[in-house]
């Protein structure tokens, strides 16, 4: 397994459960010893230089807990006491939307609030690198989106983020680059768009029309690979970069009356399926 994370980017390790994402993350965090090979974080060895790195790296672990009856502000205050340099804990809680929960016990927080608290603990010492392991697993869509905004905020403050996720939507919306992991191996690395373009270049356009000439008109589209017809509905497939534009152009030029128009683009889930032969959910 080999990958490099660039300064100031959000880099995602993506793959199904059991692919080795958390194991990799724990090696990067220095919590787990590597069997072989080397890891360098900010030019330091995560195990040998653990002390030095802990002050420069913020960590959010998968499935971590705090004492049930610890208050939100107490946890932040305790964490702040562990580092030589910290940010203002109250301001941090406000920024993460936990200002009103300062005095709440950990056990009384919702899943999203707990995760936001863990982000606060990971950021309290103003780290250069932030490691987030399965940050939004188990959260509802609304809480998930709120957390994504926070992670983008971390990047905007100039930090580098390495995260793991098995949610392809999360990777697509959040990550600048991703490494696809399967059975402990990196299959490929790239931006989500780049990976989709490389592995799933096919574009699909669905058009509904009762125009009797439609099929013959569509046949003239540049780059068209196939046309399927079901009643008045046509499914057009092509690989060229301007395929969708060419379809629109054809419809417009031939004045075809359209009752429905839909494009389907491939996503990271399709890339994963293409690369591994099985769905990420399997």
């Amino acid at each position, binding site marked *: 397994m080999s990958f490099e994370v660039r300064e100031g980017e959000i880099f995602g390790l993506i793959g199904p459960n059991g692919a080795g994402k958390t194991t990799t993350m724990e090696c990067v965090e220095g919590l787990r010893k590597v069997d072989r090979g080397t890891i360098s974080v900010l030019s330091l060895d995560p195990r040998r230089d653990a*002390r030095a790195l802990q002050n420069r790296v913020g960590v959010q672990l998968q499935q971590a807990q705090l004492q049930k009856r610890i208050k939100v502000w107490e946890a932040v205050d305790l964490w702040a006491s562990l580092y030589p340099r910290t940010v203002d804990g109250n301001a941090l809680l406000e920024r993460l939307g936990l200002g009103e929960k300062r005095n709440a016990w950990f056990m009384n927080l919702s899943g999203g609030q707990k995760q936001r608290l863990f982000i606060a603990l990971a950021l309290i010492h103003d780290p250069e690198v932030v490691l987030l392991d399965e940050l939004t697993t188990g959260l509802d869509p609304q809480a998930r989106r709120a957390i994504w905004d926070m992670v983008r905020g971390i990047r905007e403050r100039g930090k580098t983020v390495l995260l793991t996720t098995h949610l392809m939507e999360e990777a697509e919306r959040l990550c600048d680059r991703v490494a696809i992991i399967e059975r402990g191996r990196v299959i490929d690395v790239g931006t989500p768009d780049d990976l989709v373009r490389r592995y799933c270049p096919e574009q699909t356009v669905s058009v509904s029309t009762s125009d009797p000439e439609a099929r013959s008109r569509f046949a003239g589209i540049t780059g068209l690979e196939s046309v399927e017809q079901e009643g008045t509905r046509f499914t057009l497939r092509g690989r060229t970069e301007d395929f969708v534009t060419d379809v629109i152009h054809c419809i417009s030029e031939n004045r075809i009356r359209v009752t429905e128009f839909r494009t389907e683009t491939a996503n990271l889930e399709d890339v994963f399926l293409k690369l591994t032969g099985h769905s990420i959910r399997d």
Partner: protein
Amino acid sequence: MTSAAITVRSLLKLTWLEIKIFAREPLGLFGSIVIPLLVFIGVARLVPPAAVMGPPRRGWPGGGFLPVLTTVLIALSAVGSLITIISIYRESGILKRLRATPLQPAIILTTHVIVKLLLTALTMFLMLLAGRRYVPPGAAVPYLSFGIAVLFSTWAILSIGFVIASVVPTARFAQPIATFVLYPMLTVSGLFFPVAMLPPSLQIFAKALPLTYAVSLLSGIWKGDPWSAHLIDVFALALTFVLCVALSSKVFRWE
């Protein structure tokens, strides 16, 4: 700020936090302080005053048995509680989260030892207050020395708890393991009958157990012995602490 200053700051912060968290659990507070106190008062009403708080006579039975028994039981309960808390912290992932910070395991264990010692001291203080009226007139009970002996013994016995707490996998196993390891020690510790009355092989076994020295120290100090008469006990308990701390730092498991 130096790393030593940060260590002290985090130790104090965590200790104060653990005290507050403990105080927020009414059942824990009740079980640790109120129950021992009620049991003590109840027993004290049933047995003759001299047996409760009076200075012990040579051999057994005699006065002072109850304070020593109570002390040892409170110390063992503190060990059980330490083991349970650490195993709950491990099982639920709290230790794992702390591991990803500069906090060292020694700080976490030390924090819990301080909390347990403070609780022991508070319980003993309340018990001595409750027991004052049972002290025969004119009997000089060395409260301060006994208090120090209590904390010193508890501190050493807690270190046995470190080792168990370092490796016990789940909270469900913690209490039975603690009971299995600690309470048999009590039977041959010299509390119920003198060690000299045991068969020779059991005497060797008893002398290898730290609880025997704790009982000897506590009974002696209560009786009015000077500390110099119990240097072997003090040395044995200190050695127990050093060995157990060294062992637990080797075998400590975060998860």
